[in-house]
């Protein structure tokens, strides 16, 4: 059985995930509103309560890739001086790979 399940839901703010949720099951947000949660009753219930569109891992990864690629392309379009190595943290967004 897979360790995680994936869904797409917009973070609506307060109450979207609570401290109690964090204690009950694994939860991690990714670009493109992708959420990876523990493959258990609590995680599945949370995805359902948020009206999340459940995705396979490959589908979720594709959504993440699309958003990261867009961010990378935006970075690539910056003037060279903005991309200079000496500019701290103005680094090209890195690929995000689901574990």
């Amino acid at each position, binding site marked *: 059985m897979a360790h995680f399940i994936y869904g797409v839901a917009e973070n609506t703010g307060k109450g979207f995930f609570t401290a109690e949720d964090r204690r009950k099951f694994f939860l*991690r947000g990714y670009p493109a509103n992708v959420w990876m949660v523990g493959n258990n009753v609590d995680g599945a219930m949370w995805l359902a309560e948020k009206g999340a569109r459940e995705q396979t891992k490959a589908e979720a990864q594709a959504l993440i890739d699309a958003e990261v690629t867009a961010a990378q392309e935006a970075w690539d379009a910056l003037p060279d001086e903005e991309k200079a190595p000496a500019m701290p943290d103005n680094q090209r967004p890195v690929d995000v790979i689901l574990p």
Partner: protein
Amino acid sequence: MATYEEIYGKRVKDFDSDPTLESSYEGQVWYDKSTGVLKSVVSAAAWSSTSNMVNALARSQGAGTTSAGLSMGGQDGSDTKLTVTEEYNGTGWSLGGSMPAAKSDHAGAGTQTAAFAAGGSPYLNSAYNYNGTSWSGIPNIGTARQKFAGCGTTTASLVFGAQVPGSPPQGGQTEEYNGSSWSEQNDLNTARAKLAGCGTQTAGLGFGGYQPTIPSPPKQKAQTEQYDGTSWSEVSDMITATSAGAGAGTQTAAIAYGGSAAPGNTTATQDWNGTAWTTSSATLGTALSNNGGAGTSTSALSIAGYAPSVTNNVEEYNVSANVITAAAWAAGPALGTGRYSGVSGGTTTAAIFAGGGYPRDKNETELYDGTSWSEVNNMNSGRGRLSGTGTPSSAVGAGGYTPNSYSSAAEQWNGTNWSNITSLPASRQYMGSIGASGSAALFIGGNSSGSAPSPAYQVNETLYWNGSSWATGGSYPNTVWNPRGFGTISAGISCGGNNGPNTSSYSYNGSSWTAGPSLNIARDNCGASGATDGDGLIYGGGSDLSSEKWDGTSFATSASFANTHNGGGSNQNGSSSTAMIFGNAPNGNAHEEFTAETTTLNVKTLTQS
């Protein structure tokens, strides 16, 4: 086997049920006779989502606490520097006074009512103080720079680290401000930019950062330094080298969270106890960098940032014995007849929705008893774009639009039937309304004529229905249609409205209107709940899903609902903690109810495992 008393010299009390608890009970143990288990109040650390900011941004600075937080400046997704200030009240965000000039990647610290912001991109030396309402200039810092850190107060400030033009681009420059001037101090031992900091001017802490002369990769720094008011001394390194992260706390109790930790953004939280760092079991929900920080080592905010695009998401960290259940909207029973812009009012246990809808203009009346909607006697004439308020036992509706014309007709509900009453002085649609009965209500603005809602045809009239006739009240400050109100006819609040959704709010004292604070989000055709003018919730409108709490002084963002409710009805006689919205243009029947935030203790059953 030894007993608990033999080991600890104390007995475990037993109770028939959980005792009345408060957080000071943390760590105490009792025996619950009803369930036959040992229980205790325990604390735990966790990050949870909290209300989103009004603006999506990164590279801002945070200040204050989790109940009175502040975000200063930053930049948006197109890298435009911002003057925006947002204030957090523990529940939601609202706009504060704008900075005199845009800043991002600056240093800053303080409280919500006394904060400073200094330097910033592109290599600024300007500095400002915030007093909770507005910003004012203070002397410039000595070294123009960006991507550095700050701590302290407005009268005892400390800034350190630097990204400066020229070579080397990263520095350790440190300056103190005493309330009247900045003075150069001893540099950090490790030159760097994009570090985090916390503490005070005489007990500061700087950690992490970026220095690309380190063999690549990584370029992130793990060094931690303490400032004693005179010089910096290096102490234990962070567990994970991080730059562009946030920090909160003091020199002896701090946390570092988020940021860039090769190869990418991190969710990690690291705890500092004054001597060493440890990695916390609590992680941010989403990895991000360039987030703002505020609060303490046990109660902190992670404010927006890059994830990797700019976000307005905010997370709150708490080490607490309390379990906080956030305010939330949940689905309620659907209306029998889907529609919008009807007569609505009441409470979450006794509400009414009548008329409204388009294109088939409705005359149905439905009552809600807290469990389900039931249809009762129809209005005498069906029409859409209707206005009105009341309760299941007494309501009034007026104006509207029939398939062929504007209407001046008015009807009153006595709990059983609708009866025609004196017509409005003029045909009108899309008025706002305030009141809790069919014999005392205000009707505000609306469209007077014309083929479509248009500023050319909207009015600023306030009409008062006293149960037998119409009178003219004080003029609304501007022409308006589709505002929403709550409170009473002599102490009411009216917000938003068309002519493009807007953020205006006005209070009414029974005879005249006075301008109030702005909504955070422009709204029209929205919902509103509040029996008084000192407490209310305003929500939705158009395609917006958000809500804002009114505490009698200002509006702050709150929980969002799931479905659009454009022109939905609402329980006007509710409150900031008891609200509901139902219907949606043109014929939606969804119903959602609001539950306010609650706090309970984290009581755990003790087991041997």
